[in-house]
């Protein structure tokens, strides 16, 4: 009897607490607010799974023969051997390998343990599931094409199949997924809307909150202070999903092709880890990456293509203007005269303008030049700018007329009536996808369905030609020619 009472373990309340913290997530043992004893006890009960942070990776026979150790970071899926380093670990008193790739989320060493919940599922207790009326209170209407696409998307996700929405910029993708999200939420599923960029999350979050007022929504991006981890709907950057594991039943990825996602395999890994096995993924994009495009065209992946904007006007097509060696001019402190003329003309018409440039230094230089040339209300933003969110919201309010920006604002930003130029469109930074996205900033609202989009260049590049061709093609598919 005495023995039995001693191995009683924790009071049931504690398990609920552990479940609350760990369910659907994966943490390093040291960042948990739980004591080692509690974790050990849960492991013994089979509620909690613990695994090593860094695991050896032996892919080929050659590795075994040469005895060169290779590593894999279990948290971020990094297998680039250059980004592993060793340190003399103060905790285990040995030489530890650590992953430099996901260092910003807390260091993962060989001796780090990753902890996740593998016990019983928690009961769902969201009030809105039992609510009878619709969850989505968005009062706009979808066009015929949009509602057909929304229906197809909904059906595919119901059957657990992935789906590609290939829709031109400004076709109202976000509104199109509302019915599908509503359906999934009603079925008691956990849904995540992942996007590659903080700016896009910041734009989407208020829209989702307005559309689903009764649903707890948590927004995760670098610097967000969100603690509502159990929210059934999560809007997140792909980076932040790395702390989730085996959690979501349905995933929406907005702007699949955006730069970090298709360059950085960590983000793909993070999304796969955050999803439950077999969870359907809905990809949304105006310019899908080659593999998805091929899968869709060969019929492996269900999908739908939308070639018309929601307001039914064609996409504005880019124009090319040669301005000579723009880099040299700007370095010398001169403004290309064609650019100047265009900006003056647009200032006269009281339009707002995005000026896209290829690098941070160029954005600083050009902003200064424009301010000196007497363009009032000019500001520059780039990824390292601490005031960038403030500047973008000032631009939205109309306080800023000309916003000089790097490619960070190439997508997800909707400002009605804006016109766009790209200075140095021949720079290799601007690939065809980026240029299509940039062109897509123009004419998004029904009041201003058209506008200029000008590529100032020093020699046409393949990317520029392809981008223009793609837009023309889409307009043709939309029945405008």
């Amino acid at each position, binding site marked *: 009897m005495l023995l039995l009472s001693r191995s009683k373990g924790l009071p049931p309340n504690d398990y609920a607490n552990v479940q609350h913290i760990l369910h659907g997530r994966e943490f390093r043992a040291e960042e948990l607010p739980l004591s080692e004893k509690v974790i050990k006890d849960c492991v013994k009960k089979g509620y909690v799974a613990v695994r090593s942070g860094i695991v050896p990776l032996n892919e080929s026979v050659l590795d075994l023969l040469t005895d060169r150790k290779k590593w894999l970071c279990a948290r971020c899926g990094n297998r680039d051997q*250059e980004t592993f*380093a060793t*340190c*003399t*670990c*103060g905790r285990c008193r040995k030489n530890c390998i*650590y992953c430099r790739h996901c*260092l910003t989320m*807390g*260091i993962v060493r060989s001796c780090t343990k990753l902890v996740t919940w593998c016990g019983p599922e928690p009961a769902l207790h969201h009030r809105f599931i039992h609510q009878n009326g619709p969850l989505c209170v968005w009062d706009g209407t979808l066009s015929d094409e949009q509602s057909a696409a929304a229906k197809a998307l909904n059906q595919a996700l119901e059957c657990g199949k992935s789906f590609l929405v290939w829709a031109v910029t400004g076709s109202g993708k976000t509104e199109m997924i509302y019915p599908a999200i509503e359906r999934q939420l009603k079925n008691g599923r956990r849904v995540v809307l992942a996007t590659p960029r903080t700016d896009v999350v910041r734009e989407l979050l208020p829209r989702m909150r307005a559309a689903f007022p009764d649903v707890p929504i948590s927004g995760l991006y670098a610097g967000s202070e969100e603690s509502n981890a159990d929210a059934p709907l999560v809007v997140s950057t792909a980076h932040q999903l790395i702390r989730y594991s085996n959690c979501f039943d349905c995933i929406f990825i907005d702007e699949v092709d955006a730069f970090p996602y298709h360059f950085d395999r960590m983000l793909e890994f993070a999304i796969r880890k955050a999803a439950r096995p077999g969870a359907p993924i809905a990809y949304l994009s105006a310019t899908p990456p080659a593999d998805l495009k091929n899968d869709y065209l060969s019929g492996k992946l269900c999908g739908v293509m939308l070639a018309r904007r929601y307001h039914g006007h064609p996409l504005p097509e880019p124009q090319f203007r040669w301005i000579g060696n723009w880099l040299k001019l700007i370095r010398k402190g001169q403004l290309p005269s064609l650019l100047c003329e265009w900006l003056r003309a647009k200032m006269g018409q009281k339009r707002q303008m995005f000026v896209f440039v290829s690098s941070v230094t160029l954005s600083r230089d050009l902003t200064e030049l424009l301010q000196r040339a007497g363009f009032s209300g000019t500001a520059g933003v780039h990824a390292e700018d601490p005031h960038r969110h403030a500047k973008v919201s000032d631009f939205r309010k109309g306080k800023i007329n000309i916003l000089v920006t790097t490619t960070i604002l190439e997508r997800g930003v909707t400002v009605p009536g804006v016109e766009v130029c790209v200075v140095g469109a021949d720079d290799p930074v601007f690939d065809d996808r980026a240029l299509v996205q940039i062109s897509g900033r123009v004419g998004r609202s029904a009041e201003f369905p058209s506008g200029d989009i000008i590529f100032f260049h020093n020699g046409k590049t393949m990317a520029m030609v392809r981008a223009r061709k793609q837009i023309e093609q889409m307009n043709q598919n939309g029945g405008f020619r």
Partner: protein
Amino acid sequence: MHCLFCGADQPEMLTFRSLLRAADSPGFCRSCRDRLALIGSQNSCQLCGRDLLLLDSGTVHGHICNDCMQWKKSGRNGLYERNHAVYQYNAFIKDVLNQFKFRGDSVLACGFANEMKRSFRRIRKEQRLKWQSGFIRSSGDYIVVPIPLSMKRLAERGFNQAEVLAETLGMPIINALIRVRHEPKQSKKNRRERLIVRDTPFRLENEYASLILGKNVLLIDDIYTTGATMRLAAYALSKGNPLKVDSLTLIHA
């Protein structure tokens, strides 16, 4: 070769030196190195190693800054003579240090290795010159002692940044000190709190006491701010009767 800090793949400039030198250890790229502010040995404070060009000339007394004059007057120096610092504190090195120390990216120390070694060579050379010109009796080389962390802090941080920096010098490291008292972080204190006279949190490890007897000790740490830590460590070392105690830090704040 990728830059250790920013990850950019910038080729080194081709010079005779880079051509003839053995393969480089991984380091920082040119643009990152340009953003680090090296302190020239000619215009540094002779006692704390800070960059005197950044101070008003009124607060400098013949190559010695005001703070060091205060220390001298206070009589708390004991065996502690002077500090050498490699970089001046700035916003960029703050980021690097943050990643190195608080995020645990200990491999960044490799990027500092060259400059640390160069400073160490210079310190030894000065020492030799002094000996040759008869200023000091012993040419005794330095014994490298990193500033230790408390056990609790070590477990929290996972590594001792001072020890990692000391390793870059390529000298045998003597962990002669132990930190017996766990205190709040110096970096979370203000100047006044740092300078309060307090008991040393360090203790000399008995088995190493004989090693430092009559020798020069070089303390290694990541950052010199007010010099309070250094003096407390030197005080603990003085139980082992070293000849003198100097220090080398990566940064002068």
